[in-house]
C-alpha cells in the first residue's frame, strides 16, 4: 500500500503552504518520532520531578537546619514514615487501577487492637503476628469482594469499612491499651543498622518496595492495572480479569495495612483501638503528591516513594526547626495542590504561547 501522508507530518507535504511557522515547528518536533525508553523516560517523566524536588528539599534542609545532616535524622525520619510508606505501596496500585481504599488506617487499627488482646490473652507472639496478618488479609478480602465482585463503588464501600473496621477495633479491645509486648521485639522495631541510622525494619520495607515496583512496572499484571485504570471495559476485551485483579489489590492493601498496624503497635509498644487513625488521608495525600492520578491509569512507585519521603522530610525538618505543625499542614496541602495544578498551568502556558506564535504568523 502506498500510504497517503499523515496530517501529522505536514512538513513532507508538497501542498503545504510555506512560511507557516506552526507547521514548520511541528516537523522538527516530529523529526524524532521514536519514543524514549528506559532511563531517559524515567528521568524526564512526571515522577522524576518529585524526585528532584525531594533532593532539593533534602539539600536545603541539610544546609539551613543545623544537625539535619546526620544519621540520627535518617533513623527518626524513616521510623516516622514507615507506616505511610508501607500502605502507600498497595494504595498506589489501587489508585492506578481506578479505585481507592479509605479503610487502610482502620485495618491497621483493627490489627493493633487484635494484637493487644491476643497477646494479653497469653498467646505466643509468633502466632499473634500470623493471626494479625491473616486478619488484615480477611479485611482486605471483605473490601475486595464488595468492590471487585459485587461491583460497588470503592469510595463508598471503604468509607463504610473505615467505620466498620475501626468499630471492630473498639469492640475487640475497648478502651484498654496493651503495652507489655516482649521488650526484645519492641527494641528490634526501633533498632538501627549499625551507625547508619537506618532502622533495621527498613530491610523488610525495602523488599516490599522492590516487590511492588516490579509487580507494577515489569509484569503483565501491572500492565493490566494501568489499562483497567483507564478503561475497565477495554481491559476486559484484552483478557484482563478485572474483578480478580482488583480483588488481589484489596488483599494486598489489607495485608500491608496489617503489617503497618503491627509495626505501629510494636514501635510505640502500645496496642490501642485508635492507633493510626486518620492515616488514610495522609497516605492518599502522599500517593497523589507522588504523581498518581486519582482517576487511575497513571503513576509509579518511584514517584510515590519520592512523595512519601518529601512529606516525611519536610515534617521532620520542621520539627527539628521547632516550626509549628500548623506550617506542616499548610505546606502539605499547598504541595498537593501545586503538584496537580502546576503541570496543567505549564501545559496551558505552552499551548497559549504556541497558539500566539501560530496566530501571529502571516497568513498566505
Amino acid at each position, binding site marked *: 500500500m502506498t500510504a497517503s501522508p499523515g496530517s501529522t507530518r505536514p512538513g513532507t507535504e508538497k501542498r503545504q503552504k510555506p512560511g507557516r511557522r506552526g507547521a514548520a515547528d511541528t516537523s522538527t518536533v516530529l523529526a524524532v518520532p521514536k519514543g524514549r525508553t528506559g532511563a531517559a523516560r524515567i528521568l524526564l517523566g512526571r515522577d522524576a520531578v518529585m524526585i528532584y524536588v525531594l533532593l532539593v528539599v533534602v539539600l536545603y534542609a541539610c544546609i539551613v537546619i543545623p544537625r539535619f545532616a546526620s544519621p540520627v535524622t535518617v533513623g527518626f525520619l524513616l521510623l516516622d514514615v514507615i507506616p505511610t510508606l508501607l500502605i502507600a505501596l498497595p494504595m498506589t496500585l489501587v489508585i492506578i487501577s481506578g479505585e481507592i481504599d479509605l479503610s487502610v488506617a482502620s485495618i491497621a487499627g483493627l490489627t493493633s487492637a487484635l494484637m493487644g488482646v491476643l497477646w494479653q490473652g497469653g498467646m505466643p507472639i509468633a502466632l499473634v503476628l500470623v493471626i494479625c496478618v491473616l486478619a488484615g488479609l480477611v479485611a482486605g478480602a471483605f473490601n475486595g469482594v464488595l468492590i471487585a465482585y459485587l461491583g460497588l463503588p470503592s469510595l463508598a*464501600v471503604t468509607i*463504610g469499612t473505615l467505620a466498620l473496621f475501626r468499630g471492630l477495633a473498639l*469492640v475487640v479491645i475497648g478502651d484498654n491499651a496493651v503495652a507489655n509486648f516482649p521488650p526484645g521485639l519492641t527494641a528490634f522495631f526501633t533498632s538501627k543498622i549499625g551507625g547508619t541510622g537506618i532502622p533495621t525494619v527498613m530491610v523488610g520495607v525495602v523488599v516490599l518496595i522492590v516487590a511492588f515496583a516490579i509487580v507494577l512496572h515489569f509484569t503483565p499484571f501491572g500492565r493490566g492495572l494501568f489499562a483497567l485504570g483507564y478503561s475497565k471495559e477495554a481491559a476486559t476485551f484484552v483478557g484482563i480479569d478485572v474483578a480478580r485483579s482488583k480483588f488481589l489489590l484489596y488483599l494486598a492493601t489489607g495485608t500491608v495495612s496489617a503489617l503497618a498496624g503491627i509495626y505501629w503497635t510494636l514501635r510505640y509498644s502500645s496496642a490501642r483501638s485508635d492507633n493510626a487513625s486518620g492515616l488514610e488521608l495522609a497516605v492518599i495525600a502522599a500517593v*497523589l503528591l507522588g504523581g498518581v492520578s486519582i482517576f487511575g491509569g497513571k503513576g509509579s512507585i518511584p514517584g510515590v516513594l519520592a512523595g512519601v519521603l518529601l512529606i516525611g522530610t519536610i515534617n521532620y525538618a520542621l520539627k527539628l526547626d521547632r516550626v509549628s505543625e500548623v*506550617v506542616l499542614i499548610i505546606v502539605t*496541602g499547598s504541595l498537593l495542590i501545586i503538584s496537580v*495544578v502546576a503541570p496543567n498551568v505549564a501545559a496551558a502556558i505552552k499551548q497559549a504561547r504556541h497558539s500566539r506564535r501560530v496566530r501571529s504568523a502571516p497568513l498566505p
Partner: protein
Amino acid sequence: MSLDSKSAAPAHPAPGHQRRSALGSVLKLRELPVILALVILVTVTAALNPLFLSEQGIKDLLLNATILMILAVGQTLVIITRNIDLSVGSILGLVAFGTGSVFVAAPNLPIIAVFGIGILFGAVLGAVNGLLITVAKVPALVITLGTLYIFRGINNAWAGGTQYFAGDRPEAFGNLSVDTILGFPVITLIAVVVVAIVAVYMLGTRPGRDLYAIGSDPEAARLFGIPVTRRVLMAFVVNGALAGLAGVLYASRFNSVGATTGSGLELDVVAAAVVGGVAIFGGSGTVVGAAIGALLLTTITSALTALRVDKFWQQAIVGILILAAVVIDRIAGVRAARKLRIAEARNV
C-alpha cells in the same frame, strides 16, 4: 437498501407505560430504602425506650441532624457534578471560629448580619476550591484534600489556643438552637428551608438539571454547550456557603469554637450523602435523600445510646449501615436495569 416499513425497527420498546401510578413512583424512589430504615429505627427504638421520642428527645434528634444535613445537601450538589469536597469540615471550622471572633469584636452586630458574614465567608472558601478545580482543571478530590489541610492550618494559625465560648456570644444567638417553633428547633427549620430550596432548584430549574448532566458525562456536557465551568464553580460556591451556614449554626449550638472545630467531619458528610442514595460518581441522587441520610446517620448514634447498646459496637454498626446502603442502592440499580432489558427483549 430496500427496507422502509416501520415495523422493521425491532429494538425499541413500545412507549406504552408512560403514565405511572403514584404508588409506583413512590416505590421507585431512590430514597425509599433510607426512609424505611429511618422509620424502622425510630419505631423500634421508641418502643424500647419511650424517652427517645419525648419532646426533648425529638428536639435532640433534629438538632443533631441539622448541621450534618446542611453539609450533606451542599456535598450532594458537588457530588452530583462528579466532584467531591473534602474540605467542608475545615470550612465549617473556620467559619465557626470566625463567627465567634465576630461576636467578640462586634458584640452588637445584628445576628442576621453575622449569618450573612458566615455564609459569605464560606462561599469565598468554596470559591477557592471551585476556582482551583475548574480553572486549573484538576481533580476535586486532590484539591479539596489539599484545602482540607490548608484551611485547617489557617484555622490553627488564626485561633491558636484561643477558643470562644457560648458565653461570649449573645444569648439570642445561642437560643436559636434552644427555642422551638411548632416543636422544631429554629436552626432545624433553617436547615429544612435550605433543603427545600435546593431540592426545588435541583429538580425544577435548568441550571439544576445541568448539574446532573455534568455529573453524568462531563465531556458530553462540554460538547453540548452546558457552561460546565460556571455550573461546577457554582456548586462549590453554594457548598461553601452552606458549610458557612453550618459553621454559624455550629457556633449557635455548641459551646466552644476553636482551632479544631469540625475536624474529621468530611467523611461523615460524604457517608450521609451515600447513605441517602447519592451516586458517588455523579449524575444521580437527590438532596432530600442526602438530608434523610444525614438524619439517619445521626439518629442511629442516638438510638444505639438510647438502647444502651455497648458503645464500642456503635461505630461498627454505623459502618454496616453505610455498607448496607451501598448494597441496597446497587441492588435497586441492577433490578431497574434488568427490568429495562426484559421490557426490550419482550418487544423484540
